[in-house]
């Protein structure tokens, strides 16, 4: 029933096209590896093994994937309202500020309060950083693409200032906060799963991934099952119809950007509460931008985003293993491979789509 209802077109869109895009990206990557004189098949194997070959690899892959789920959901949520939020990077970074404030000034909190407070604060500050471009778009007509990009730079400067001058751990040189008390440390999954014989090595995979999956469910419920999500989608699809339906478009734009910023801000939970236990200068490391590719490739649907996030997690993890095992394939080549995946999955998503739709749909359409 579901398959019949959704039709062939849905499955082409959600399954076949991403796979073809991925294959094309790997094909071109293989040519590059060949060019620098390495065996592309061995490189591919090293990469896959490095990402999925053993327990610790899985742990790292899923740890990175957790980051990408948060920022992917952030981009997707704004996208449903017809907004292109490029500011995931800055919003995630500011999410770190939210945690730093709680961790530094409320270190006395007991565990059961510390972690919820830090999570809430990350979402709140990230959300405020999303509110700014949302408000500017809704009330002043400044395009979110422009304002969110610019606010990424503002975020980076602001964080640099705060980490160097305000939040820095007293008596030390490197721009990072104090290590937060243990009450703020999220449990590592290997400590939970180890006793059951699941070996995750010493990977930083932590309870944040559960929060990420919870966000996926909430995202799905919000967008497709609530009135707010309904209004968000109407605004995203057809603003004229939204005005006709009495929807306050500006209000929806602002709400969507707040929620988007909050989701991006939660990425800091994984990095800070789950792994580093302090806020380090530049900890976002470009994950926010990858979120755009994740959302594009995941077709703005939580399931697609989870799959795309795992793919990019694997590229990150497998890529660093590859660079380690094949000295001639430097870290930069790995970045090139990631770039190709983004290019084919995101930028060129319509390269094969129309062709395939035409090929596969024609016989079906011609039947009355």
């Amino acid at each position, binding site marked *: 029933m579901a398959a019949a209802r959704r039709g062939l077109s849905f499955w082409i869109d959600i399954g076949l096209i991403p796979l073809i895009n991925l294959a094309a990206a790997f094909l071109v990557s293989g040519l590059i590896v060949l060019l620098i004189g390495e065996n592309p098949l061995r490189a591919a194997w090293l990469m896959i093994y490095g990402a999925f070959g053993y327990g610790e690899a899985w742990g790292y892959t899923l740890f990175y994937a957790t980051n990408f789920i948060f920022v992917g959901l952030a981009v997707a949520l704004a996208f449903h309202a017809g907004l292109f939020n490029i500011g995931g990077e800055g919003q995630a970074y500011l999410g770190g500020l939210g945690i730093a404030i709680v961790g530094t000034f409320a270190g006395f909190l007991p565990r059961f309060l510390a972690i919820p407070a830090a999570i809430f604060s990350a979402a709140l500050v990230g959300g405020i950083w999303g509110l700014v471009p949302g408000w500017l778009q809704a009330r002043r007509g400044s395009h979110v693409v422009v304002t969110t990009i610019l606010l990424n730079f503002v975020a980076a400067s602001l964080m640099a200032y705060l980490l160097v001058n305000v939040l820095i751990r007293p008596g030390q040189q490197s721009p990072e906060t104090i290590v937060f008390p243990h009450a703020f440390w999220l449990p590592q999954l290997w400590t939970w799963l180890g006793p059951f014989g699941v070996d995750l090595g010493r990977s930083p995979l932590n309870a944040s991934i559960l929060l990420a999956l919870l966000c996926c469910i909430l995202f799905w419920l919000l967008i497709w099952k609530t*009135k707010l999500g309904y209004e968000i989608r*109407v605004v995203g699809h*057809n603003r004229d*119809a939204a005005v006709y339906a009495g929807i306050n478009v500006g209000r929806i734009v602002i709400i969507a950007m707040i929620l988007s910023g909050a989701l991006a801000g939660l990425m800091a939970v994984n990095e800070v509460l789950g792994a580093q236990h302090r806020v380090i200068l530049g900890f976002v490391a470009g994950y926010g931008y990858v979120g755009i590719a994740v959302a594009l490739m995941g077709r703005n649907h939580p399931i697609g985003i989870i799959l795309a996030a795992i793919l990019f997690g694997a590229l990150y993890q497998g890529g660093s293993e590859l660079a380690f095992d094949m000295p001639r394939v430097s870290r930069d080549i790995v970045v090139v491979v990631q770039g190709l995946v983004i290019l084919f999955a995101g930028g060129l998503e319509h390269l094969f789509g129309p062709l395939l739709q035409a090929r596969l749909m024609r016989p079906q359409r011609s039947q009355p």
Partner: protein
Amino acid sequence: MQAAAIELRAISKRFGGNVANDRVDIRIESGTIHGIVGENGAGKSTLMNILYGYLKADSGAMLVDGSEVEISQPRHAIAAGIGMVHQHFMLVEPLTVLENMLLGSEGGVTLKRGMTAARREIARIERDYGLEVDLDAVVGELAVGLQQRVEILKALYRGARTLILDEPTGVLTPQEADHLFSILRNLKMQGRSVILITHKLGEIMRVTDRVSVMRRGQMVAHLETRATSREQLAELMVGRAVLFQVAKGPARPGPEVLRVEALDLKDERGVARLKDLSFSVHAGEIVGVAGVSGNGQSELLEVLGGMRSPTRGSIAIRGKMTCWRSIREQGVAHVPEDRLRNGLVRGMKAYENAILGYHRRRDYGGFFLSIRTILSRTRDWFSRYDIRPHDVFLNATSFSGGNQQKLVMAREIEHGPVLLLIGQPTRGVDVGAIELIHRRIVELRDQGMAVLIVSVELEEIMSLADRILVMADGRISGRMPTAMADERAIGMMMADGDAVAAD
């Protein structure tokens, strides 16, 4: 007999099942201003787009100065001496007037030589036709009337002997329109011909020598302007082809449901669209708003439907003063004129579209949508209104135009409004559905609903409405019970506001 500047013979053009032009003949003599009137959608623009090479006619012939030409691209039209001034200007705003003139005929790698030659030539044209524009001004900084002049200048510079103007005064102030008309008369003196597309009858009477009337894709009359009148033109435009027969008893009006007082609306450019409208609609009656399209009816619907705020005036529903934004919550249902653009979200599913505008109601859930209720209601409407295919999970795009219309109608009617606004009830609806819709509207009236219909089809208003308001130029130019109305009088009132605008 001297060959006509332009002659079109038996031009036909279909879009899918719609016949936009049905064997249209027209003859434009040189040295005349020839008006083409007709309602929106009558086929005027299609015809001109064919003449200018944007569209290709399915059949028919085009003659310029007596010899047949093949025009399949605008540059062919330009080569044949035809120029067009669009309703929306085709100018590059950051460039100067001179640079805009040169677009497409730059004449060499560097602009310098072409520029000097062009400057001289354009200065000459400006002198000959009294078309003064500063050639070095930046186009984006010019007033709308001057931008239009640049368009005319551009066409003349490219050697146009026949100039097509598509609704040229829609964006102009009355003073600018006067200027335009004197320019057109100048062109005529110099032996050039002008085709003026408009639905403003006052303009036709003022400047044209001959006028052709189009209705539903056909040319219904060619007249000497001197020998006709506004009333005759209005009648010809609206037509009285098929009289819909709607079986209905006399209305039994109840208490007042809608009261509009001193409503004014100015658009973004400050042009007045609604001027001091006051009227009321009672429960159990159908009020029809007649008028040539573009005289403020669409704007009236948008204000009453809560889509835009009036500049001034008050709206009361059942005696309660209402803010335009919350008007929907007061029980006003609105079937918009452009249902496919405003009334539906094409990328969303049919059942989601079935609650558009009503989704905030409690019976559709609190924070969460109660999808089960929505589904069962939508399925019910699907069978009662015979919407096909019978699958509420399909995206709105998957339905034909007629079925999309029915979905919007069902949604607005079935949510139990006290006042129902319907724009162009039967536009784009097939004959069978027209009957269904008309019968349903009368039924709703008999159940005590107040209904306001805006239609450009005069017959529809005459057969459906209990009372008629006529709008012209943003005002109400006449009101009467249908029983006392005759088409001649209404035609006169439809043209009336135009006279006001033209003076």
